[in-house]
């Protein structure tokens, strides 16, 4: 049995907790913290009860117990860090992750901030402590891109990658192309569907996709590139006419994240792309094409967001850690 502490009880945290209860995976939650409270039990917490309390009160545990208390005092093998992303500072998640690594605990996170901003430092700390830092859920939701890179494509040289990494943009572009909607109309629709935030800047200006590109590039090439190194153009100035002009030629427009290190290209931009290209996926789907020396081109398509979908990526990481490291009776 592996013991885990869960920090963050939003959509992703609830999804992970729910699935760990539902599925008999040999993983017990011994600590939980949300933004207002925390609770611990080395024998395992009553998750159903805590989730009901969260729904009723807005917090799940004892308000005198903080996330840092849970990280410092709970009995766990791996920390699941799923607090909201802060793309500017990465905090408080960076602090949480460091605290757990320093205690020789494995860490699994869905949080893009710490990985995009502090990957080298956190990775080095994990290596030094002999524990795992895994972040499959940070890029392309349920698509097992990190596992594919690490295992399936082991030994390959990755020459380039191209991705549709932001579901909000892909939904907007899909709707503009299919219905001739203006950008503003498609954005409003995306909001109504719950696919876009009240402030869509982070998505529509390509920042989210660029952060994911940074995470992928650092994972694959260890090149230390940062958000500022990514050449970035958003979709907010696109016109329905532009999509129609592309359509006349059997093409469409998609926001593509592209990394070709040998050409020094790290770019997120709307691109003209043939409609039958494997990266042209509909709605909020994500897609990633890797170009490698041996396997040549590989394209992965899947859901880029969602509570259960993200839980899939996190649980995949946890079970990897359980198989590889954790030996408990």
């Amino acid at each position, binding site marked *: 049995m592996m013991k885990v502490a869960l920090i963050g009880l939003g959509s992703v945290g609830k999804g992970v907790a729910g699935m760990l209860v539902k599925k008999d995976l040999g993983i017990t939650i011994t600590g939980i913290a949300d933004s207002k409270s925390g609770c611990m039990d080395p024998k395992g917490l009553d998750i159903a009860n805590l989730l009901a309390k969260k729904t009723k009160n807005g917090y799940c545990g004892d308000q005198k117990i903080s996330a840092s208390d849970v990280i410092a005092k709970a009995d766990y093998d791996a920390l699941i860090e799923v607090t909201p992303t802060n793309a500017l500072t990465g905090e408080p998640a960076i602090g949480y992750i460091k605290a757990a690594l320093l205690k020789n605990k494995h860490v699994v996170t869905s949080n893009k901030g710490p990985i995009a901003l502090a990957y080298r430092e956190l990775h080095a700390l994990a290596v030094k402590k002999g524990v795992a830092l895994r972040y499959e859920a940070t890029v392309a939701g349920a698509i097992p891109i990190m596992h594919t890179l690490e295992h399936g494509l082991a030994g390959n040289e990755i020459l380039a990658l191209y991705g549709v990494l932001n579901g909000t943009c892909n939904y907007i572009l899909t709707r503009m192309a299919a219905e001739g909607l203006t950008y503003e109309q498609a954005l409003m629709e995306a909001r109504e569907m719950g696919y876009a935030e009240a402030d869509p800047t982070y998505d529509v200006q390509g920042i989210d996709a660029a952060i994911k590109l940074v995470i992928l590039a650092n994972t694959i090439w260890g090149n230390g590139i940062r958000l500022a190194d990514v050449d970035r153009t958003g979709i907010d100035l696109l016109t329905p006419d532009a999509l129609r002009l592309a359509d006349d030629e059997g093409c469409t427009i998609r926001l593509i994240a592209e990394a070709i290190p040998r050409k020094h290209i790290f770019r997120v931009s709307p691109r003209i792309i043939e409609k039958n290209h494997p990266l042209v996926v509909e709605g909020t789907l994500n897609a990633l094409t890797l*170009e490698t020396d041996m396997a040549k081109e590989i394209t992965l398509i899947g859901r880029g967001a969602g509570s259960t979908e993200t839980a899939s990526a996190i649980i995949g990481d946890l079970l990897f850690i359980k198989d590889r490291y954790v030996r408990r009776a």
Partner: protein
Amino acid sequence: MSGGLVQISMKLEMKDSPGQLVAALKPMSEAGGNIIAVIHQREPDLDEDTLNVQIVLELPEGRLEKLVALLNEQGVRIQRIGEERLLYKRTVILIGHLMHTDLSDTVDQIDSTGFAEVCELAMSMPAVNERSSSRITIKAVSRGDMEAALAILRRVSNQKSLLLIEPLEEIA
């Protein structure tokens, strides 16, 4: 204009005996050609000892005469030959105040290079003061020339605050 390629298609007639095809293909690589396709044709009403072969190849400009001479030396009969300048085409979309920023100047900046030109332009203008969109197809003699033309277009778009949408170029 240097560095251009031409695409040659030729129909050859040769004896249907071992070694003949190799003898015909060898001069093509000697002339610096890149063979794209070799198509055998066995026409039923043709003499049984004769083989017709169609060949498509890329050749650096100005090498065709040398190739023909080499083929003749090998005893290969050329029945037909066609030459076409190989052109790189790329389509981009420009969005913004295209007329206010002098579209003909934008096009001129490509055309005046001598190595690339705008060969097609489709445009839509929704209303005065609204941003318009256009699809522009550029052709150039070589890949390098195309890259140079696109670099110019990127610079001009940047200066004129136009949004340039480039094609996703197939796999690096």
